[in-house]
């Protein structure tokens, strides 16, 4: 009989999709060439805030190959307003968000004209021939200045730069005490203001859109991570009947939240293609991408902790100013709110108050970027825990120990109202400390301090948890989010026993094709190779909520399990009928149905054929074994971990070099350890990059001065340390796979670990903070300021 087969789940399977992704032998959107296809290029405003007084297109339309030059006025009637799905408060202010500016521009990079030409080159040439006159308006860039009395206004019609104020208070919510009182009564209070600089998602594949308007229904290909949301929103914004619009996300080269959007360019490409009745393509350049794709972070965080002398935290207060940019895009206002639930992190704080004011500025809108709200929260709390430890003179790990939720206290309902199902912070921390050589490094640090070494050593601690598996639909509803958080999967069992799995998630580099195949292979007892995973095409995967928020496995993977279980249940009924026994007597192992206690058995393949030909099915059983399932989680999942970072800071130049980095993550059960490892590495790189390298910088006129990859510094492998990674495994209780999500963990945890290490290296020299990114110059200046 069948030998015991090694389960697929847990194996470090090479990713099925990599050969085509890495060689480029696939249909990236920009590779698509349709017969008669035209090319769209857009002209972008060089100024951040101005009235458009005229747009002269007469030269441009005369150029060779140019079919049409469109201005905001031409499209004003049909373009609608770009959607915002997350009105966080009832009275949130949201200005109309045009895809192409009509009479005013509100950020540098906003579209002001569009050219359709026969070739991309001709379209590009024509842009230079368009003449736009601008009448400058005052530019609002700084968050604090924007909310001051008498500030210049981004949208004078709104009468204020404040879009909304969102408050959570544990005393009011009944989840804890009064934070303000706790601070007033505290033995120790530490308050800090941290700046989350603006970041650019910088996905590898630039955005691209192709639209075939078709004779009676349109197809839109886009390098998006949200084809389902996109179809829904485009039909809502433009009034195109949803069933007349098919959206396809072919292979997509990264997103990090940057492609979780309904973009002006998607709207414009669709409008123009329909107008001309011809297929049209738009592909951005890297600089366009950096200027006009949404940015991430950009918050000013004032955080206050109250504590007893023994280190027990008694209250936490957070005041945020969050930069929305000029408009509210898909989930712009909700990003800081996602963080609201995470400031209390892994701790048993008894009282918490959070206030966030969302602010308009003349910059490109912010929106989701890897971690979306949670990295910001984790940074602030983990930074201030180190500050509190320094204030109290206790070891930062010990301070955390005194406040964290112990493993025997789960499930634990936090002061922010979430119920953490499982976790073991003690285990992850113990393992991290061991791998890191914590005590030896502390000893070396003491030596270097005593020797006045020009190179100082710093140790940074970061413990974290995050809410993943977005999201229980009811919770989203309570937060006023405009959609649900469920996920869908369908399984088609083909007559030859091969399986097509249709998922509503939309992978853009994560490896769903491989991981989902592993899950199905185990559940149905079919070979890994026999599973084809289909995704990203609304005509194939008709239901889905797409990929973001570390949701795909915890929610989408669970839908896969449920669909597979339905297939099996039906197959069991058919097998029992054919083997003339009760379904309860049928055992299923490794692809074989056997009658318990007998030698009678049937393979899944035989059952598949029987179900398919339908010659002999039980009464009332439909032919075929296909099944589908939709899963809506009851709770989030809560991965956690402990990251430890050692840096060497050259006090003469200010340069920070990461000497060692250890992370121990608990992401629950692991489907494919290699994929998990890859996600951790990539996440660490991005989180470290926020700490040390990346920053979107604007000049005082609001022009982005970091609009190429020569100016916006992404680290490469040589700039990063060798990572020591390990895992503890506390399965999640909230889904049958026991998985928690890993897409954002590294990004969330690493930024505070690095900055804590930098400050730790220099604290004895008087440094208490270094603004991110901790560039050599900033570190050097902090040292000079600190020592003075």
């Amino acid at each position, binding site marked *: 009989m069948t030998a015991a087969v090694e389960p697929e789940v847990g194996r470090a399977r090479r990713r099925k999709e990599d050969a085509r992704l890495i060689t480029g032998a696939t249909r990236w959107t920009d590779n698509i060439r349709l017969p008669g296809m035209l090319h769209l290029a857009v002209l972008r405003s060089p100024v951040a805030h101005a009235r458009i007084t005229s747009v002269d297109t007469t030269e441009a339309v005369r150029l060779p190959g140019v079919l049409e030059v469109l201005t905001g006025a031409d499209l004003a009637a049909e373009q609608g307003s770009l959607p915002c799905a997350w009105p966080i408060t009832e009275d949130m202010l949201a200005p109309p968000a045009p895809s192409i500016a009509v009479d005013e521009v509100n950020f540098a990079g906003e579209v002001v004209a569009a050219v359709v030409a026969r070739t*991309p*080159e001709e379209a*590009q*040439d024509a842009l*230079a021939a368009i003449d736009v006159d601008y009448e400058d308006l005052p530019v609002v860039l700084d968050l604090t200045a924007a909310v001051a009395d008498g500030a210049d206004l981004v949208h004078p019609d709104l009468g204020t730069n404040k879009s909304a104020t969102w408050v959570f208070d544990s005393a009011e919510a009944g989840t804890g005490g009064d934070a303000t009182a706790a601070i007033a009564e505290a033995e120790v209070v530490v308050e800090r203001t941290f700046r989350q600089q603006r970041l650019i998602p910088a996905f590898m594949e630039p955005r691209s859109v192709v639209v075939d308007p078709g004779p009676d229904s349109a197809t839109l290909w886009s390098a998006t991570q949200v084809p389902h949301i996109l179809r829904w929103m485009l039909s809502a914004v433009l009034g195109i009947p949803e069933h007349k619009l098919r959206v396809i996300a072919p292979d997509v080269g990264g997103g990090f939240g940057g492609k979780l959007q309904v973009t002006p360019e998607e709207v414009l490409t669709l409008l123009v293609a329909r107008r001309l009745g011809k297929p049209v393509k738009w592909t951005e*350049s*890297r*600089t366009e991408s950096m200027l006009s794709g949404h940015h991430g972070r950009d918050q000013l965080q004032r955080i206050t902790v109250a504590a007893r002398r023994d280190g027990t935290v008694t209250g936490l207060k957070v005041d945020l100013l969050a930069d929305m940019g000029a408009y509210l895009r898909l989930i712009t206002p909700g990003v800081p709110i996602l963080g609201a639930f995470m400031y209390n992190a892994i701790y048993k704080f008894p009282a918490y108050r959070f206030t966030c004011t969302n602010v308009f500025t003349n910059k490109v809108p912010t929106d989701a970027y890897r971690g979306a709200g949670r990295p910001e929260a984790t940074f602030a709390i983990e930074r201030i825990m180190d500050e509190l430890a320094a204030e109290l003179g206790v070891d930062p790990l010990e301070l955390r120990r005194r406040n964290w939720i112990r493993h025997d206290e789960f499930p634990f309902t936090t002061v922010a109202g979430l119920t953490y199902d499982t976790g073991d912070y003690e285990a992850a921390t113990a393992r991290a400390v061991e791998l890191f050589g914590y005590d030896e490094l502390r000893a070396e640090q003491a030596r270097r301090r005593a020797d006045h070494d020009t190179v100082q050593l710093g140790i940074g601690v970061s413990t974290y948890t995050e809410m993943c598996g977005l999201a229980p639909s009811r919770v989203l509803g309570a937060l006023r989010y405009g959609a649900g958080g469920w996920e869908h999967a369908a399984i088609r069992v083909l007559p030859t026993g091969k399986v097509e799995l249709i998922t509503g998630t939309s992978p853009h580099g994560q490896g769903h094709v491989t991981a989902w195949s592993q899950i199905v292979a185990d559940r149905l007892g079919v070979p890994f190779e026999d599973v084809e995973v289909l995704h990203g095409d609304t005509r194939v995967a008709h239901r889905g909520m797409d990929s973001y928020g570390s949701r795909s496995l915890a929610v989408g993977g669970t839908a896969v399990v449920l669909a597979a279980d339905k297939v099996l249940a039906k197959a069991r009924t058919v097998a029992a009928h054919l083997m003339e026994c009760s379904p309860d007597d049928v055992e299923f192992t490794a692809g074989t149905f056997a009658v318990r206690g007998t030698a009678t058995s049937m393979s899944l393949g035989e059952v598949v054929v029987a179900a398919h030909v339908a010659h002999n099915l039980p009464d009332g059983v439909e032919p075929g074994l296909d099944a589908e399932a939709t899963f809506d989680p009851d709770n989030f999942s809560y991965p956690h971990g402990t990251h430890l970072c050692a840096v060497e800071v050259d006090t*003469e*130049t200010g*340069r920070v070099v990461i000497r060692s980095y250890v992370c121990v993550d608990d992401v629950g059960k692991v489907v494919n350890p290699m994929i998990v490892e890859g996600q951790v590495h990539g996440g660490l790189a991005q989180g470290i990059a926020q700490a040390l*390298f990346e920053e979107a*910088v604007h000049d005082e006129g609001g022009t982005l*001065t*970091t609009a*190429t990859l*020569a*100016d916006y*510094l*992404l*680290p*490469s492998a*040589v*700039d990063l340390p060798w990572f020591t990674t390990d895992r503890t495994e506390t399965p999640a209780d909230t889904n049958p796979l026991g998985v928690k999500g890993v897409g954002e963990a590294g990004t969330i945890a690493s930024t505070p670990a690095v900055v804590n290490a930098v400050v730790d290296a220099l604290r004895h020299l008087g440094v208490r903070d270094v603004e991110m990114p901790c*560039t*050599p*110059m900033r570190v*050097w*200046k902090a040292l000079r300021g600190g020592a003075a």
Partner: protein
Amino acid sequence: MIPAAFDYTAPSTVDEAVRALVAGGEDAKAIAGGQSLLPVLRLRLAAPTLVVDLSRLTELAGVHDDGDSLLIGALTTHHEVQRDPHVREHAALLRLATDTVADPQIRHRGTLGGALAHADPAGDLLAPVLALDAVLRCTGPAGTREVPAAEFFTDYFTTALEPGELLTHVRVPKLTGWGARYEKFSRVAQAWSIVAVAAAVKVVDGVVEQARVALTNMGPTPVRARGVEEALTGEPATAEAIRAAAARAAEGTDPVTDGNADAEYRTHLARVLTERAVTAAVSDA
């Protein structure tokens, strides 16, 4: 990122190339490795109507031993400079600086001549060429002339090359047996220098007999740190002497403030990096 349209020609001799450039006038541009020119064209910071490709000028490729000096063809790629045994032996400073340029892909296409003609003040090959007292051979409609490095770099992205003139060779006097170091400071490995220091020293019996020091990105052109050289020459090669000399590194410089660093920090870096570069060069000697 699509360049404006241009005509293209790929002559096979220097004379033909010069003629093509002269005929094209202001609207013509030579292209060697394209690693600096193509980004400029793609960002449409320039829109020449004629691009003259130098890649077929095989007479300008490679490194030749020419007695007291090395004669390096302008089209020699960074990669070839890195690998060349003559350069390794007689112009170690140039090799060390070339090692820090960009990444392997770019070093396989970019050329020494292109880097010098482009004259980016943050470029890493200008200061070494200046420190080594190299002479640049140029050929144009008026014939061939030799320009000392000290006179070649005249301003930001500007050289002594006349319209229609090509840089054909770089003559580098041999500094055999000298110690060398190129100390580059950049934020990530692939980035341009915020500041860098090129140092070469001849040490005899523990005494610095000769020193050459030049700075990258401390002004519109590379700067020779004459004060440092003076202070080192004839002194024992000790840490104190080097530190004292390095204190003079910023003399005569005019650093900019930009997104990476302000002038004050650059001035500070120049001193720190000079001390490190000279110290390393001394121990290499």
